[in-house]
């Protein structure tokens, strides 16, 4: 039994920490206002560090990192409150596009790819319904396409004779219309409409989608654990320094107990994450749901204990809570995930 990071994992963690360290909240806000919602030069930097390649198989020219390796990256990016869409445009496409010709440019950072799966009225289902392919033409509307404002390539789930298949469509293709809109974490998602967009053969179907999404759920859980721990640390530091009634907030028993509750949740979700990563019979959806629920609570408490300051966009606190909220719902919310677990058990 051993829960230590190995040498490589430590290197990955340190490398992500160095990558995130120079970006303070003000810089982060500036990046969010850039075209697409982040800095493409920093995306290339991330790729150069091998942090996108880690998600791709060696046969695809990647580093072939394990789920644990990748979760270390995800958790560290969460702790760093990175604006780069590593999860959405790095890990997930690297898993979806394995074995295809697109993967090299994704790993190198040249091509920003994202999954377009959600449809109006579909709630959290992964089934493609209204978006369909017939005679080589893709039609329909996808919503909540993450990083859709910046993406170069869409991996689109579409209905083909009742089955869900995955197609690859460049943003620049004829018949692709992108309407970006801001979402919780300040990034730009998009509604993407396809009108007779030409597609070639599908790269896979539901099986490929489901397995990539399940792996991504682990990464989302990891990122939320990182976010929550960051908020915990900042809040702990805050209650030690902020004084009211002539003493630091942390001297009040109510605050002490609350901090212990937060700490306890953070420990619990770290354990839940390790369990999900290390055990083969993992229910990724349930793990992610549970971690999300606790992480949201941690985020809310971090805001509460910062008082008015916690409400502003000037601290990391609100940004952390907002990223947690977004991740908590991507591919299913806590309620749907735990309900699924109950059914499966």
């Amino acid at each position, binding site marked *: 039994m051993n829960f230590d990071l190995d040498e490589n994992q430590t290197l990955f963690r340190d490398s992500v920490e160095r990558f995130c360290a120079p970006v303070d909240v003000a810089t982060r806000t500036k990046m969010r206002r850039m075209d697409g919602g982040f800095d493409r030069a920093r995306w290339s930097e991330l790729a150069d560090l091998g942090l996108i390649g880690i998600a791709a198989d060696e046969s695809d020219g990647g580093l072939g990192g394990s789920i644990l390796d990748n979760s270390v990256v995800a958790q560290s990016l969460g702790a760093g409150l990175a604006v780069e869409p590593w999860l959405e445009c790095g890990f997930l496409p690297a898993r979806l596009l394995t074995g295809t010709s697109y993967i090299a440019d994704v790993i190198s950072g040249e091509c920003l790819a994202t999954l377009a799966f*959600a449809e*109006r*009225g*579909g*709630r*959290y*289902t992964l089934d493609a319904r209204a978006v369909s392919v017939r005679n080589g033409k893709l039609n329909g509307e996808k*919503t*909540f396409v993450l990083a859709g404002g910046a993406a170069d390539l869409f991996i689109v789930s579409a209905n083909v004779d009742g089955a869900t298949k995955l197609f690859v469509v460049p943003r620049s293709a004829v018949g692709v219309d992108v309407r970006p*809109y*801001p*979402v*919780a974490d*300040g990034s730009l*998602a998009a*509604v993407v409409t396809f009108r007779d967009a030409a597609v070639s053969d599908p790269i896979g179907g539901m099986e490929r989608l489901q397995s990539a999404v399940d792996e991504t759920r682990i990464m989302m859980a990891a990122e939320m654990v990182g976010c929550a721990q960051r908020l915990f640390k900042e809040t702990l530091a805050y209650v030690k320094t902020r*004084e*009211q*009634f*002539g003493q630091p907030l942390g001297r*009040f028993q*109510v*605050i002490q107990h609350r901090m212990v509750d937060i700490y306890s949740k953070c420990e619990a979700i770290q354990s839940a994450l390790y369990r999900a990563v290390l055990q083969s019979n993992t229910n990724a959806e349930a793990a992610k749901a549970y971690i999300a629920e606790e992480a949201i609570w941690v985020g*809310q408490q971090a*805001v*509460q204990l910062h*008082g*008015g300051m*916690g*409400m*502003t*966009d*000037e601290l990391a*606190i*609100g*940004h952390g*809570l*907002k990223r947690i*909220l*977004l991740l908590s*719902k991507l591919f299913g*919310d806590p*309620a749907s995930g735990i*309900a699924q677990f109950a059914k499966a058990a």
Partner: protein
Amino acid sequence: MDMSFSAEDLAFREEVRDFLEAKLSPRLREGAACTPSVFVEPDITRDWQSILNEKGWLATMWPQEYGGPGWTATQKYIFEKECAIAGAPALPVLGLKLVGPVICKFGTPAQKAHFLPRILSGEDYWCQGYSEPGAGSDLASLKTKAERKGDKYVVNGSKIWTTHAHHANWIFALVRTNPEAKKQEGISFLLIPMDQPGISVTPIVTMANDHEVNATFFDNAESRVENLIGEEGQGWTIAKYLLENERGGSCAAPALLAELDRIEAWAKEEPSGVNGAMDHDPILMQRLARLRMEAQAFEITELRILAELAKGRPAGPQTSLIKLVSANIRQSIDELTVDLFAYDGLQLPTSRPLYGNEAPEPVGSREAQLALPTYLNGRAWTIFGGSDEVQKTIIAKQVLGL
């Protein structure tokens, strides 16, 4: 014990309904419905305020002699309830509900004659200068000082979280007039005109992208001595009176219940992704039902306090319970709304306003677009006006005697 309405009450309710039906324009309804922040912007509230003022239904908290409608507690409750159901915009409380009653109770005849009509007409728009960077929960440690020089006070220091200071032409502030006195005793309640070179206001943007609060700086700002309310050193007593009004003495439950009704209606329209709509989703509907039980019980708690007030007993520290309970129900409602709208509930528009022609196009419904900014701004309910932790301490000490 009796909770039923008399025939006169029922007639009054009809009158209120007819009035709202006639006077609440689509623009006002939209402005109210599409405001994700705690306070509604003056471009909406001004018009609604003047309609109510004309009718004499504006200052429901004030004694009749100063322009209050002279309602019974039941009438006041009926009015609030009908406004909530109809979706009327929340009025700017800072003048009407906070400083207004203070002036009614502690003001000189001259202050009453000058300020009260201007609050009613909307000519004066007020903001509240209590909190400071170093004095939040521990309000009594405030440092902003006012020194008397001839017929003026000269004010120096800074206030923070001043809601709508960027709209206001007056601020009511707690200032330290006697640095030697004990903490609470050196504080005074001073009205200060905002439009002067000694005052500057800088925006603070919330995590929901709203500009509602500000930092307000006083650099040799001036106010005439006749703008002091009560006496020097009486500020803390006045501040507490005001805070009790801020925390309770109103009707929050009707708005909560009306919101739950709206959520239920939206759930009927929101596809569940499996078959049918979210009004058949057992988890969501259980949460909704549970919240309704809480809000219904809370409504009775409020009525019990209203009945006490009607008998002339003071609101007192129970108002802390009102503030505490309503803030928490509200936040649970906001969470439910965000969850109802799934992915659409994650959009977070950066531009404002979210009503009128300039509003950004929503993804899905307008309600979905409002869900997250409302939730995020709503985290403040358990912070401002005395945080949850502060309210619990007050209740523990003053109600439970601990």
